[in-house]
C-alpha cells in the first residue's frame, strides 16, 4: 500500500479517465491531466474561468469543463492538445452540462430548466429538448449508451421521453403515473426504467423500454416515501430506501417485494457483526516516536483508530430529526450494491455514524460499521466485494467480508477525506479533501483482509506486504 503525494484540486474536481490511464484535476482555471501510474503531468489546459464541472468522455479522449457562471463549456482533446472547442450557452445561462454516452455530444441544461441543448462535436449541430423537468435525477442513459430517458413536465403532468442517443430521435414519449416525478433510472440491462415519485408519496413505477408500465409498487401511504433507489448490477434486485428507515428489495420477475431490511437502533441479529471504531491517542514515548516520525508532525498528533467487535445486542447511535425542517434527516439516503451483487451497503440518515452491509444471498444483515464521525461517502470496489468509506477525518476505512481496517492518511498537514472513489481497476483509491487529492495505490485485496493492520499507522510511501 502506497500513498502518493498530495496534489491540489478545487471544487472537488478530480476524475479518472474511463480507461483508467489518466487522472484529471482542476485547479481553478487550469485542467491538469496526469498519467495515473507515474502521476506525471501529461497535459495542461487553461480554461477561461474557474471550472465548476469536469467530465471525461466515455472513450477517454475528451474532457469537458463547464463554467456555469459564464455559461461556457470547454472541451479538450487528449489526442490533439491544440484542438479546442468552446460552447457558449449565451445569455440564458447554464446549470448543468454532461456528455452523451457516445462522447461526441454535449448536453447542456439551461437555467430554469428551460431546455436541454444537445451540441454535436461531429457536425456542430444543435438540438433542443424542451420542458426538461428539474428534479433529483431527470436524465439517465442506459448502460450501453443507446437510449436516454428524460423526465419532462408539461401541462402539470409528468412525461418521460426516451431518446435514441445515436441521432437523438425521440423513440417514446409517454405520461408517467406520478404526482411529481423525482427521479428515473435504467436497469443495468437497459430494458427497465424505474421511476419514483417525490417524497410525499411512496410510488415506484417500472416501465419497459417501449413505454409499457410493467409494474407499480407502493409500500405505504400518507407518509414520506422514497428517498433513494438502486439497481443491483445484475438487474435482479431493485433496492428502495425510504423515509421509514427501511430498504425494500424488489425482484425483477414479479416486481414484488422480496424482503425488507430494517435499521433498528438495537442490533440483536446474532449473525451480524458490529464493528465499532475506537479512537486512541498515540502514546508518546513509545518506539514509534522516532526522529523520522517527528518530522511528520501530523501523524504524531493525529489519533489512531481501530475497529473493535461489539458484543450483541449493540446500540447504534441515533439522532432525532427535527420535524419542522424540510428534508428531515431520517431514512435511507444512500444505497449501493457491490459489483458482484452479493452485498448491499446502506446509510440511514438518522444513524449518520453507521454504515450497514447486507448479505444479498442470505438476505440478512451482515455487518454494521459504527464510526466515530458521520459517514460522508462510501464506494464499492468496482472489481471486488470491498467497500471504502470516509468520515471527514484523516482516515480511510475499508470493509471486506473478512473484516475492517482503518488507514490513516499520512500526509503533512491535515488531510480530511471528504470524498473518495475507486480507480476502475479496483487497485487504487483517490481521496479528496477540501483542496487536495491523494492517491492510495496498490491496495492489495489481502491488505484489507488482514485485520493485523488495524490501527497501524501508515507512513508515507512505506510499502507494506
Amino acid at each position, binding site marked *: 500500500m502506497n500513498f502518493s503525494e498530495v496534489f491540489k484540486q478545487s471544487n472537488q474536481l478530480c476524475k479518472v479517465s474511463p480507461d483508467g490511464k489518466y487522472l484529471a484535476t482542476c485547479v481553478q482555471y487550469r485542467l491538469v491531466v496526469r498519467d495515473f501510474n507515474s502521476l506525471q503531468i501529461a497535459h495542461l489546459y487553461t480554461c477561461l474561468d474557474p471550472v465548476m464541472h469536469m467530465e471525461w468522455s466515455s472513450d477517454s479522449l475528451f474532457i469537458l469543463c463547464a463554467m456555469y457562471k459564464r455559461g461556457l463549456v470547454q472541451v479538450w482533446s487528449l489526442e490533439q492538445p491544440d484542438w479546442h472547442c468552446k460552447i457558449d450557452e449565451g445569455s440564458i445561462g447554464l446549470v448543468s452540462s454532461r456528455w452523451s454516452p457516445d462522447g461526441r455530444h454535449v448536453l447542456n441544461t439551461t437555467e430554469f430548466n428551460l431546455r436541454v441543448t444537445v451540441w454535436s462535436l461531429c457536425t456542430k449541430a444543435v438540438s433542443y429538448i424542451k420542458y426538461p423537468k428539474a428534479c433529483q435525477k431527470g436524465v439517465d442513459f442506459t448502460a450501453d449508451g443507446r437510449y436516454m430517458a428524460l423526465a419532462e413536465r408539461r401541462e402539470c403532468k409528468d412525461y418521460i421521453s426516451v431518446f435514441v442517443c445515436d441521432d437523438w430521435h425521440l423513440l417514446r414519449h409517454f405520461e408517467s403515473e406520478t404526482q411529481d416525478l423525482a427521479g428515473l433510472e435504467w436497469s443495468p440491462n437497459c430494458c427497465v426504467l424505474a421511476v419514483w415519485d417525490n417524497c410525499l408519496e411512496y410510488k415506484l413505477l417500472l416501465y419497459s423500454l*417501449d413505454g409499457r408500465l410493467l409494474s407499480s409498487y407502493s409500500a405505504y401511504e400518507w407518509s414520506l416515501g422514497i428517498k433513494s433507489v438502486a439497481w443491483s448490477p445484475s438487474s435482479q434486485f431493485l433496492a428502495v430506501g425510504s423515509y421509514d428507515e427501511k430498504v425494500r428489495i424488489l425482484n425483477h*420477475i414479479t416486481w414484488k417485494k422480496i424482503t425488507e431490511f430494517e435499521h433498528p437502533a438495537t442490533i440483536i441479529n446474532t449473525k451480524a457483526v458490529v464493528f465499532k471504531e475506537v479512537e486512541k491517542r498515540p502514546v508518546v514515548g513509545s518506539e514509534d516516536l522516532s526522529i523520522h516520525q517527528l518530522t511528520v508532525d501530523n501523524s504524531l498528533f493525529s489519533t489512531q483508530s481501530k475497529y473493535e467487535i461489539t458484543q450483541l445486542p449493540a446500540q447504534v447511535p441515533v439522532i432525532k430529526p427535527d420535524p419542522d425542517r424540510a428534508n428531515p434527516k431520517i431514512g435511507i439516503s444512500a444505497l449501493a450494491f457491490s459489483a458482484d451483487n452479493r452485498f448491499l451497503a446502506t446509510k440511514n440518515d438518522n444513524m449518520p455514524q453507521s454504515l450497514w452491509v447486507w448479505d444479498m444471498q442470505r438476505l440478512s444483515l451482515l455487518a454494521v460499521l459504527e464510526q466515530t464521525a458521520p459517514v460522508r461517502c462510501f464506494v464499492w470496489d468496482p472489481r471486488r466485494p470491498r467497500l471504502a468509506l470516509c468520515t471527514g477525518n484523516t482516515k480511510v476505512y475499508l470493509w471486506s467480508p473478512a473484516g475492517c481496517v482503518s488507514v490513516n492518511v499520512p500526509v503533512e498537514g491535515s488531510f480530511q477525506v471528504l470524498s473518495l472513489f475507486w480507480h476502475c481497476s479496483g487497485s487504487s483509491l483517490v481521496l479528496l479533501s477540501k483542496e487536495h487529492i491523494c492517491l492510495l495505490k496498490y491496495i492489495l485485496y489481502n491488505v484489507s483482509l488482514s485485520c493485523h493492520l488495524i490501527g497501524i499507522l501508515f507512513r508515507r510511501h512505506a510499502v507494506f506486504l
Partner: protein
Amino acid sequence: MLDSDESVFLVSPDPHPHSAELSSISGISMSPSRQNLHHSLHSTMALPKTSYSVLSAFCTEENISQCIAYINQEVCSLGLTGVSLESKSGSLSAVPVLNLLYEVLQLQRRAQRALHELETQQLKNGSDLEHLQHSNCRLKDQLEHTRRDNSGLHEGERQLQLKIKTLQNWLKSEKEEVQKLQSIISSRATQYNHDTKRKERECTKLKERLNQLLMDKRDKKLSIEISNHVGRSDGKRGLWKTGKMEARHEGEMYKALLSDYETRQRSLMMENSELKKVLQHMKKDMITILSPKKPEPANDSLEQAVSECEEEIGDPSRETLEQSCEQAREQLTNSIRLQWRKLKSHMERLDSQASLVASQEREGEEMMSRKEHEEEMQRMRMELQQCKEFIHMQQQLLQQQLSSPCDEETAALLNDCYTLEEKERLKEEWRLFNEQKRNFERERKNFTEAAIRLGHERKAFEEDRAAWLKTQFLNMTPFVDRKRSALSDSALSVGTEPEAKLQSTPPLVTKSLFSTPKAASVKMPSTADLYRTLHLIPDSRGHGKCQSGEMSTKSRLRNCSTDCSVLSFVRDENSPI
C-alpha cells in the same frame, strides 16, 4: 289458719312454751313470698346450720302438733299434697315423716341442681353476652369502616366519571378539531395544488416567452467554436433522419427487448428444468415410499383412485414431465396433489397406529413393561458401569502409554527398567517371606518345647495324683493298719526319693487299688473317672492325719473342678505332641 295453729298449740299435751320462738317461726313462715323460690331455697340451705342451735329449735315436745300442722301447711304450699303428717295420738309415725323428708330432700336436691344449672347458664349467658357485645362492637367498627370505604369509592367513582365526562368532551372537541384540521388541510391541499398548477402554468408560459425571446433575439453568444470536426466514436458517418431510420430504431428497440425477454426466458427455463428435475426426483421417491403399501387392500375409494392414478402416472415410459402442454401440466399437478394426499393420509394412519399401539401397550402390559423396563435399566446401568470402568482403564493405559516416550528404544529400556524394578521388588518380598518363615519356625520350636514341658509337667502331676490316690485308697481299705507302714513309707518316699523311683512305683499301687472295689478293669482309670471318684467321695471323709501336701492337692483339685473340661481339652490338644 293461724287459729288452728294456735289451737294445736294449745291442745299439745306437754306444751313447752317457747312462744317467742314460735312466733318467730310463724313470722318466718308468713314473711317469705312464695314466689320467691330462690330466696326460700337459700333459706332452706342456710337452715341446717341454724336448726341445731338450742334456741331456735323448731320442734319441741310441746309443739309437735303445731309443728305438724305447720309442716303440713308448708308442704301443701310446696305442692306435696300427697304426703301429710298426721299425728296419731301425739306420736308421729315415722313412715310419712320419712317420706316427707325424702320428698323434701328430693325437692331440695332438684332445686339445687336447677340452681346450679341456672348459675352455669347464667355464666354462659354472661360470657355469650360479652362475646356478642364484642362482636357487635367489631361489626359496628367494620360497618363504619366499610361505609367510609364505600363513600370513598363512591367519591372516586364520581370523580372518575367526571373525568371520563371531561375526557369525552375533550375527545369530542379534539375529534372536531381533527375534522376541522383535516378539512382545512384538504382545502389547503386543493388550493395549493391549484396554486402550484397555476404557477407552473405561468412558469411554462414564461419559459415559452423566454424561449421565444431568445429565439427571436438571435442570441449571438449562443454558439459553438470548434477548431475542427471530430469523427464519430463508432467511426461511421451520421445518417439522415428518415422514416427508414425511425423504423430501424423501433426495430432495434424491439430487438433489444426481445433479446432481454429471451435471456429471461432462458434463465427461467433453466430454473424450471431444475425444478422439474427436483420434482421428478421427489415423485420417484414418493412412489418408492408408497409402493409397498399397494398390496394392502385399499380401504376407501379415494385410495383406490389414488393408486390407479399413480399407476397411470407413475409409469416411467410416459414422460409426462417433458410434455409442456396444458393437459400434461394439469395431469402432473393433479398426480402430485393426489400423491401428496395419499402421503398425508398414510402419515395420518401411521400416526393413529402409533398412538393406538402406544395406548395398548400402556393399557395391557404396564406393570410387565415397567418391570422389564426396570430390569433393562438395571442391566443397562451395569453395562454402563462396566463400560465406564473399561473406558477408565483404557484411559489410564493410554495415559501411561502417552506419558512414556513413543520411540521404541526408550520404551524397551523403560520396559527393562520396569522388569528390573519388579524383580527387585520380588526379591525384597522373598526376603521378607523367608524372614517370616524363620520367625514362624522359631515360634513353632518354642511352642513344641513348651508343649513338651507341659507334657512332662502333666506326667509329674499324674504321678502325684496316682500316689495320692493310692494313699487315699490304702487309707480307706480295711487293711489300713497293715499297710500303713508301707504307705507311709511310700508317701515319705514321694518327698524324699528321686523321680525314677516314683515313676516305677505307682502302677503297682493303682493296680491293686482299683481292682478291689470295682473288680473290673486292670487299666489305669481315666481322669474323668478320677474326678468322678473324687466327687463321689466327699472331702469330709478326708482324715485329719492327712499330710499337708495331700491336702493342698485336694484343695487344688476342688478349685479346679470346674476347669476339668478345659483341662481335658488341653490334654487332648496336647496329646499328639
